[in-house]
């Protein structure tokens, strides 16, 4: 009897220690996860908004975070605005916008990534999804009919044939900074070439699915205010500036000059820096404690 009680006690004690460590990991992780307040930036009479126009949401959708979580994640990443662009549906965008309005921002624009086998196109500021069966020019026309803007998503060479002269002229913007281009110079060069062909609004976005960081690549939008309409207007007018990882600026030359004279752009991106000792401790402890809990298992049902 005593021999049986010993291991049982050890197992119970082990479970208790593992759950306690897990609690400590979550508590320290939560404490280390602080949002630093950002003062609004005004340059040349425009409100300069840090935005990410290519963010995917789950529930449902092919991404890690649900729309409501992305609202808080955007705050954490110092974004003033973002567009929720799930694949071929605007449902998630409308949910995210509703949540953002309830919690006081950031500004969420409903949108979608129209994903076809020949092109990927972001429709920003729309209420209904556009058929992915349409050719690029017709899809762009439909986005415009709804009052939105159409942005070529990561336009690598493979997608170029889908954009004929009509659709190139109608595009409102194209991604010139994208995570795919950060680590692959060939992809970056292709996106730059595409952008140079028409010189519509320069867009930097993270194509965020959960890996990497939301706002990893971002667009500085020079808008009249932080409303959805003002942001869409600014993109349509090409009032955007994007900085790549090397600090090269793309976008409206006048605004690039004004931003350089002002000196506050690009803002330092703390996402890439060391998260701090508390976060590192929480991370290591959390992983170990979770593995321990799984191996120890839950107690048997009474």
């Amino acid at each position: 009897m005593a021999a049986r009680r010993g291991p049982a006690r050890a197992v119970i004690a082990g479970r208790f220690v593992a759950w306690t460590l897990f609690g400590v990991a979550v508590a320290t992780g939560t404490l280390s996860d602080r949002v630093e307040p950002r003062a609004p930036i005004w340059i040349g009479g425009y409100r300069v908004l840090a935005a990410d126009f290519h963010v995917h949401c789950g529930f449902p959708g092919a991404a890690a975070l649900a729309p409501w979580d992305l609202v808080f994640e955007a705050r954490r990443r110092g974004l003033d605005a973002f567009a929720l662009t799930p694949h071929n549906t605007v449902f998630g965008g409308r949910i995210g916008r509703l949540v953002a309005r309830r919690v006081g921002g950031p500004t969420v624009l409903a949108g979608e990534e129209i994903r076809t086998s020949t092109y990927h196109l972001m429709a920003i500021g729309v209420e209904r999804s556009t058929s992915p069966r349409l050719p690029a020019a017709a899809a762009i026309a439909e986005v415009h009919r709804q009052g939105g803007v159409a942005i070529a998503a990561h336009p690598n060479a493979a997608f170029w044939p889908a954009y004929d002269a009509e659709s190139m002229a109608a595009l409102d913007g194209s991604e010139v900074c994208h995570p795919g281009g950060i680590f692959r110079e060939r992809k970056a060069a292709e996106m730059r070439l595409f952008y140079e062909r028409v010189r519509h609004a320069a867009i930097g976005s993270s194509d965020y699915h959960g890996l990497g960081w939301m706002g990893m690549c971002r667009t500085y939008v020079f808008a009249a205010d932080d409303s959805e309409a003002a942001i869409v207007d600014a993109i349509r007018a090409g009032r955007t500036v994007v900085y790549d990882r090397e600090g090269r600026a793309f976008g409206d030359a006048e605004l690039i000059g004004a931003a350089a004279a002002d000196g506050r752009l690009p803002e330092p991106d703390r996402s890439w820096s060391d998260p701090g000792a508390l976060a590192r401790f929480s991370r290591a402890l959390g992983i170990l404690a979770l593995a321990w809990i799984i191996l120890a298992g839950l107690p048997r049902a009474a």
Partner: protein
Amino acid sequence: MHASRWWIGARRPLFAALVLGCAVSLIVSRTTTVRLIAGGALAWSFVPAFDAAAFAVVRRRARRATPFSRDLDLACATHRPWLLWLVAVAGLAAFATPRQTYDALETTAGLTTLVASLVAAAAWSACIDFRFYRTVFERTRSAAVTDLLLHRAMAWTACNLFFWTFVGWPLVADRLGL
């Protein structure tokens, strides 16, 4: 004191959701925070929910007299390989730099390692599930294999449809020439 039936049936699926939430938190923020764990657990709760639903269908075929909650509790004990795999992958992602993550997902070696570890977890899990159907449900060898395959087919199809439908339907329609 006996736990309620509801709790017995729900605790392991809830635990799976908690681990999914932790994995989301580790991948997204490289740490564990209450906000991301709760949000991730809710957003990914469809995985244990579809798994439990698929199990309910398989159990119906076996005509069990024991309470569903108890059977579900025992069946979910086989989640261990998946959960360990998930924590390992999330842990690696949490410690990797963006460049390392990107490289790992773009290179054949990285993808092969990921897929191989996934296959190993799937095989381990299948062995445990097979034993479960044989011993707990007292099924014959062939019936246990059928139960296992049916369970997997239903749960995985439902999860993949929930996750990929909006991405995939235009591509499938294009392929089929619709």
